[in-house]
């Protein structure tokens, strides 16, 4: 497994470079929007990757609650963190595209709002993980992840009632897209998914090392306290005696 990591890193770098070349030079220019449209090759793959990561987070959280498996918890933490990063990319690239095309930075449209609320939920998830100190943090976080997943469809329906401005989804949404553009889009998605996997993997290993170190330190301090108790028994009692 360890040897697969540098291979994945190299493949990801190549894929990202090739997908960038395809997106900027090879993909045909969009007729009405012009070059601005090329941000689409980063916006949409980031969104798909973020949703995929959040989905993995939910699955890992459920597994953790059922099995109490520490690895599942580490996966949930990692996918939550990396997912927030990708979701941030989506929320930043969206307005950059929307300003010249729609003439506005932001609108309270169904997909924008749902993505924003999803982002908010997962930021609160990370805040909980940061602020909670007890060994029960994974349990609390897993429960919050499930609540977040229940919330998303409700958010979707609550905004579904308003008019939708976002372009229809390119896959299965009835919109037509040039096959060359679709090719570049899927290539970019592959590159982004590899990138997300790479980052998550590195973060996962870091998290596991961190936990090992913490365990070792806790064990060490217990051993020190155990041996120190005998010393202190002979030295300290005088100060404890009632005056």
């Amino acid at each position: 497994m360890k040897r697969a990591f540098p291979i994945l890193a190299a493949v990801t770098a190549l894929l990202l470079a090739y997908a960038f070349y395809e997106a900027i030079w090879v993909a045909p220019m969009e007729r009405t929007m012009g070059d601005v449209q090329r941000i689409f090759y980063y916006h949409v793959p980031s969104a798909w990757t973020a949703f995929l990561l959040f989905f993995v987070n939910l699955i890992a959280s459920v597994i953790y609650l059922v099995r109490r498996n520490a690895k599942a918890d580490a996966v949930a933490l990692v996918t939550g963190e990396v997912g927030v990063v990708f979701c941030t990319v989506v929320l930043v690239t969206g307005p950059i595209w929307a300003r010249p095309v729609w003439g506005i930075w932001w609108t309270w449209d169904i997909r924008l709002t749902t993505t924003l609320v999803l982002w908010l939920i997962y930021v609160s998830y990370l805040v909980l993980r940061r602020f909670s100190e007890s060994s029960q943090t994974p349990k609390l976080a897993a429960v919050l992840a499930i609540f977040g997943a229940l919330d998303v469809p409700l958010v979707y329906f609550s905004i579904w009632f308003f008019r939708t401005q976002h372009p229809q989804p390119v896959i299965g949404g009835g919109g037509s897209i040039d096959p060359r553009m679709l090719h570049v889009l899927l290539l970019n998605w592959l590159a982004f998914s590899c990138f997300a996997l790479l980052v998550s993997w590195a973060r996962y290993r870091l998290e596991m090392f961190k936990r090992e170190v913490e365990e070792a330190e806790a064990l060490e301090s217990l051993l020190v306290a155990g041996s120190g108790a005998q010393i202190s028994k002979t030295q300290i009692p005088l100060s404890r005696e009632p005056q």
Partner: protein
Amino acid sequence: MSSLRSITLATLTKDVRLEWRSKDAINSMLFFSLLVVVIFSFSFDPNAEESRQIAGGLIWVAFLFAAVVALNQTWARELRNQVLDAYRVSPAPANALFMAKVLGNFILVSLLEGLMAPLFMIFYNLRALGPAWQLIPVALLGTWALVVNGTFFAAMSLRTRSREIMLPLLLFPISIPAVQSMVEATRIILTGDGAARFWIVLLLTYDVVFTTACLALFETILQAE
């Protein structure tokens, strides 16, 4: 089932009596929402038509913030003298405790709304142009939505650093669809502009989904120590 009901009732009675004698939470909530009413009134200075448009948002934001005051002290009381630990080792069902706390908060926040709603009407010169009776289901369902998740997240934030600030950080993102439904339903009823049925159904769905989730997962949260 009977033990569930009797334990719920006992805990609820105890909480209501404690609150009735001290009146800590209700007084601070009342004064807090009064301040919100006055400050909003100064900062927007609306005429009658504008009031109808924005009052739904103002009312519910004021109640949301005031409810956090009540929710934060829900469990803090049980931490003193290790009452919560005693509850954990007792064979009493965890959901009885949860339901008692939710009902207690529901009574408290509903009381607050009952007292504050007339004041809102006076300060903003409100008169409902739509069917006013629909405000009652909106208020009941909306309050339940805030309180059921609020009580759950308050229990969750017990074990965190600076838990008073943690509760709104957890509660507000999850409550976004509920708050939107309440605000939209209230606005539609006040302006008489369309039907509020969609939003009431959405609120009901929200309540059912999250009450079920809370009851299913509260045991896990209570035992987390």
